[in-house]
């Protein structure tokens, strides 16, 4: 919680909380990008979605000009929605493309493409249910703490830890098999 939530108008009177937007961009953009990479499993799509997130956020950033923590939280709230919209549109428009990179009978070109890190990550994460995949993306893509993830998702912190532990154990086994 920021002072603005305690004393309305504080941000205006307290310019010390003015953000260095370049620094904020440098810090947060890679985290949002990696969150989306983990979510969608495609570097190009992740770039597109990252652009959408920041353009949305930037239009209203003045609300957060003195509140970096709140802006960071807000960015990930937007990123989650943008990812959800992406999957919803994909279901509506291209249902057969849903299982990114997991189709069998791939061509040699596709097999070569799969050797890329992004494809390997996509194949690993694709079978996960949406909630688990999002938690993994927030934890390992965005680098958020379990507490921050709990705040964002509404899950309990211990619940986040339990789910992530179970999923990581499962993923590690699959990762080893695929190596």
């Amino acid at each position, binding site marked *: *919680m*920021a*002072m*603005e*939530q*305690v*004393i*309305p*108008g*504080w*941000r*205006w*009177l*307290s*310019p*010390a*909380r*003015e953000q*260095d937007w*370049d620094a904020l*961009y440098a810090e947060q*953009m*890679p985290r949002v*990008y*990696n969150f989306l*990479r*983990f979510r969608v499993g495609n*570097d190009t799509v992740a*770039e597109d979605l*990252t*652009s959408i997130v*920041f*353009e949305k956020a*930037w*239009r*209203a950033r*003045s*609300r957060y*000009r*003195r*509140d*970096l*923590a709140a802006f960071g939280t807000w960015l990930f709230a937007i990123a989650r929605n943008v990812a959800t919209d992406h999957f919803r549109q994909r279901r509506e428009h291209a249902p057969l493309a849903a299982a990114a990179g997991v189709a069998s009978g791939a061509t040699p070109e596709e097999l070569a493409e799969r050797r890329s*890190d*992004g494809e390997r*990550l996509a194949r690993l994460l694709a079978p996960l249910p949406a909630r688990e995949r999002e938690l*993994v993306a927030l*934890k*390992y*893509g965005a*680098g958020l703490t379990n507490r921050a993830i709990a705040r964002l998702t509404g899950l309990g912190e211990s619940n986040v830890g339990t789910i992530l*532990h179970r999923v*990581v*154990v499962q*993923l*590690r086994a699959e*990762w080893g098999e695929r190596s």
Partner: protein
Amino acid sequence: MDDRFLEAQRRAPRGEFANALRERLTALERDAEVHPARRGRRWLAAGLAAAALAVAFTFPAVRAAAQQMLDVFRVRDFAAVQVDAARIQQLENRHLDPGSVLGGKVETVHEGGPPQRFANVDAAAAAAGFTPARPTLLPAALAPESVFVTGAATMRMTVDEAKLRSLLESLDVRDLELPPGLDQAPIEVRRPTVVVQTFAGPRHRRVALVQCASPEVSLPRGLDLARLGEIGMRVLGVAPAEAHRIATSIDWRTTLVVPVMSSATRFQQLDVNGARGLLLETTQTQVPGGPDRGPGRVLLWTHDGRVYAVMGDLESLDIVQIAQSVH
């Protein structure tokens, strides 16, 4: 749990992509700056409007104004008023800012620019235009961390009485008459240069000392400030009887009313070197530049025409001791 294989999957975004996106965002900023309406909104969104309205109308201490027909108010004292968090959320959901609350035109006369960082207080003094006071007592093994200076800023608005009346009706505030002479009244808010010193200690403890000359608000002479203050409090959800009681009991020429949301668990007035200070105990306090913090305190007071705030995640006694030592 060995999760390094997942952490190793993070990748730096392509530089070309990062630069192109940053350029697009910069273009968005420029776009906002060349559209006055958007610029006003951007400026004002930095402060919650209805609250700023109340703040603006409650800046204290009339002085002989240089400008004809204007009264100028400066902060000398503080009084906390608990406001309705649900109403604040309601106003935020409606994207209300001071301009839209007042209903009229909003203009940024002068932007303060981004804060500049200095190595120490002496280095910051030239940019600040005054010698910042500093604490001589730092408990909890705190040590100076950084100093920021943000330039003065000025905002000008005019009141649209019809829109303000409409807002009050939409909030079901129907029992208050607007003061005469309000329509198209010019209001100018000037925020002076602000200096912030931050201090860091063990266990990630951080404290900030904020200081500036009193913000000033110029209003047309003769406006009924008590009624404006009462209206401001009602907009913020203060109960009618309580808003009236406060409006008629405080000295609007010397007191800055600080709207405090319920997240401030406690507030009390106390003495800071002979001046009356306002101590807010919050569920969480964020020091400028820092992350979300745990429970904390904010102490506001004025001295020799300057407004001070000490905030941090220390005990009240420590916060008060720091404040008492500021010279």
